[in-house]
């Protein structure tokens, strides 16, 4: 097999192409994001309001089968037109620290601390509410002031209620109504601090 010069060059050309192909030619980059759908494409849009300051920015929570995917500003709201400040933009993390990973610092169970005890114990919500109602009645019955110099005052100074400017109107209304019916006069919320 006498390798003539021409054969030699042919052999050289073919192998060069083969080697080059394996080494460094790349295809057109197919990026994941050229697809037609993104995380919130088929999600349910639930309108809400930001729980932080009092500007009242509209929020949209994107939910797909009870899984929170994203929280953004509501473009329809004439107050914020879809924008949110840093606190509003982080509302997602009240529930989830990452997709599907609940915020581990959220309190998910009722807790009870016995007098002089050095730790929390588990307690069911119903049992907790029963004992709270019991303590309220005991304290009310013992310290209730029905009358003072001839005037019915129906005042209970032994129970105080520190409420919140971060819970809803309906909830604040119920708490005011309930506490006033017990005779509570120590009744406050964030407006005072």
């Amino acid at each position, binding site marked *: 097999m006498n390798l003539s010069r021409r054969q030699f060059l042919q052999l050289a050309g073919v192998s060069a192409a083969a080697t080059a192909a394996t080494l460094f030619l790349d295809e057109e980059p197919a990026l994941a994001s050229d697809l037609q759908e993104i995380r919130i494409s088929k999600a349910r849009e639930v309108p809400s309001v930001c729980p932080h*300051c009092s500007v009242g920015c509209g929020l949209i929570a994107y939910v797909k089968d009870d899984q929170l995917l994203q929280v953004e500003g509501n473009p329809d709201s004439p107050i914020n*037109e879809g924008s949110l400040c840093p606190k509003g933009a982080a509302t997602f993390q009240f529930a989830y620290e990452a997709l599907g990973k609940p915020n581990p610092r959220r309190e998910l169970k009722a807790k009870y601390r016995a007098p002089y005890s050095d730790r929390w114990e588990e307690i069911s919500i119903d049992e907790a509410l029963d004992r709270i109602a*019991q303590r309220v*009645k005991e304290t009310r019955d013992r310290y209730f002031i029905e009358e003072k110099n001839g005037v019915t005052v129906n005042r209970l100074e032994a129970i105080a209620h*520190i409420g919140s400017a971060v819970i809803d109107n309906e909830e604040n209304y119920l*708490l005011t109504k*309930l506490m006033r019916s017990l005779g509570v*006069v120590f009744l406050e919320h964030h407006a005072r601090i």
Partner: protein
Amino acid sequence: MTTSFWDLQNSDVIVFMGSNAAENHPISMKWFLRGKEKGAKVIVIDPRYTRTAAKADIWVPFRSGTDIAVLGGLINYAIQNGKFHREYVVKYTNAPLLVHPDFQFHDGLFSGWDPEKKAYDRSTWGFQTGPDGQPLRDETLEHPQTVFQHIKRIYSEYTPERVSQITGIPVETFLKLAEIITDTGQPGKAAAFVYAMGWTQHTKGVQNIRAATILQLLLGNIGVPGGGIAALRGHANVQGATDLAVLWHDLPGYLGIPNESHKDLATYLEKTTTKDSFWENKPKFMISLLKAWYGEAARPDNDWAFHYIPKVDSRWFSHYDIFQSIYEGTVKGLFVFGQNPAVGSANAGKIPQVMKNLEWLVVVDIFATETADFWHLFGNDPKEVPTEVFFLPAAGPLEKEGSFTNSHRLIQWKHKAIEPLGESRTDGWYAVQLGKRLKALYANSTAKKDEPIRYLVWDYDDPENPNDFDHLKVLKEINGYEVATGKPVSGFGQLKDDGSTACGCWIYSGILVEENGQLVNKADSRKPTPPNRPDGWVEARADGTTDYLHHGWGFCWPANRRVLYNRASADPEGKPWGKVPLVWFDHATGQWKGVDVPDMLPVKPGEVRMGVRFDTPFIMKAGGLGGIWGGTSLVDGPVPVHYEPVESPVQNLLYRQQNIPTARTYQSPYDHYGTPDKYPLVVTTYRLTEHLTSGVMTRNLPWLAEAFAVPFVEISQELAREKGIRNGDLVEVETARGRIRVRALVTARLKPLRLGDRVVHEIGLPIHWAPFSGVAGVQADITNTLTPQAVDANVQIQESKAFLGNIRKVTA
């Protein structure tokens, strides 16, 4: 807020004083900057150069606690140079009225001061009335006893030089400032003042706002487009919680809690109704409230169950009185719903110590808080703490439906996005369950004192979901309904005082109405006005055709009106003053019309109905007149005058009376008040964009803990040089109440203040950090251990904006 964010696009001058919108209400800055782009001058009067100041045209540093000196100086400038809107002042305010002849003001005290009782007898603060019972007036404003002459005399002492010595503002800066602001004292021009805790957290907080009220009324800036005094409220629903009266001194709809002098409903109504104003309808509102609360027990023969409501005496029952009473042993049980007082209260060190006296404590919150765990924190030994503590997990913001009321009274409905996590429940559900259990415990009691619980109207269960309550049913009760049919009323105009209607909060009435058989929740209406500008927002137009106040979005109380007292935007004949009309009187049809819901009743010129006149806009005030003179409405004076904060580095240059006499401080082993010799620096506290009050709602969110992780104390470069402190050094800040360790942030954005020949340094700290709550790595000392419990007599808010402290570098 009397106006709304959308209206601030019409301002010619926007003054941020006692507020920092860019950091605490960032999205509101969108509207302030839109006003600025349309030509408004933005002025920030703040001891610190904040992120708001970074966008302002002028930054005016001044000493914390001297707001009234600055505003007094501006009032004086306006009067001396005749830069006030005379027609507005004469026709729409009580400036022409004659004050009680025996009124006087001398060396810092008003007439009627009783040193023992430490209170004023306010009988000499009223107005002189003629034989027909109407107040006497002199429209020329010349009569020496007119309100106008009184304030002219009182504020004549607030010369630019004197103001400069008190506040540290150079005279020429003050004059430039005064010229710009008082230039709006004419029709067609408007300045808006924007305030927040910077004004309210003082022992004279309410008087700070009163000073701005006088100035803005003199300049004719209340009720006009682009005017007003905008209160940037702190929390998402602080306005709602205030409207629904989670407050010791009030009942829903600002009706006022009865006291021991009101032996029955009639006496209460007689004594607490502001005559000659829309308040004459108060009986309808009060009886409807009692009907909503006590149902069939609210009957005429039972004095409408008025006595079911607890009556207060002369004492205060406010936030700091709660902890003082826990310390004194009066309060045995404490509910804390969604707040962290161990970090958010002034003199925070006192809170966990006195709480050891509690027999039981109930905390309802989303995250763990220092308040709930007080028994093993702050040096407390659990073995010595007898308190029984219950912690109930609360549902997060996206896990419940319901409504919030924002800073400008706009009520918006939230829908539930996901189920509450774990076993957490909504706060309202806990209230409903607790109420049901208490009604059960008292079911067969025959004692009269238990009637308020037995007759309490309390069935709010949600038939479909045992783990939640019926939010809409509560909203219907708030809105008001006809007792017989249960049909919601269409507005407070329909409320009766014969027991035929029930209404939880009259100012919210009209939020849930029936339209062709369907219940329509106005708070849930989401039809904004489409933009009329290429860059996507709605601009007010001179032809008055554009609804730039978005009446189709949410429900604004009262009656979906967006700018209160908007009648004042038109002259006495009903013709709009401003370059943009708000409300006007259509003489052809004899009706009031406007871009906004007119804050008027359909009265003809000269006619008076329910205290409302054709030509006076302030329908909730006596005679419909704006309150330049405060009269007897406030406990610490008819007119605001400058006093030094309780802890001040200097003597009061204006009067012998150093502090406001009505301020209250507390006495306990944990309450101390410092003096300038030991604590020479003025200290102020504030919030940041990235966090909220005690930080429980933000430092538990990793993305926010990351946005601002390291707390700091801001000190001027000059003070840093004096104390040998470099940027980032660990320093100790100390006041009479405690000391904390924090990193130094040396900056040119804080400057030493020259008070006459003296130099005073001011330092500032954010309040968001605490040692226990939050993401790991974002814990620190509580700034509020430094702040004093010295409170304002009208609203009992603490003076945490101006107190005394000292700072040193930590060398060990």
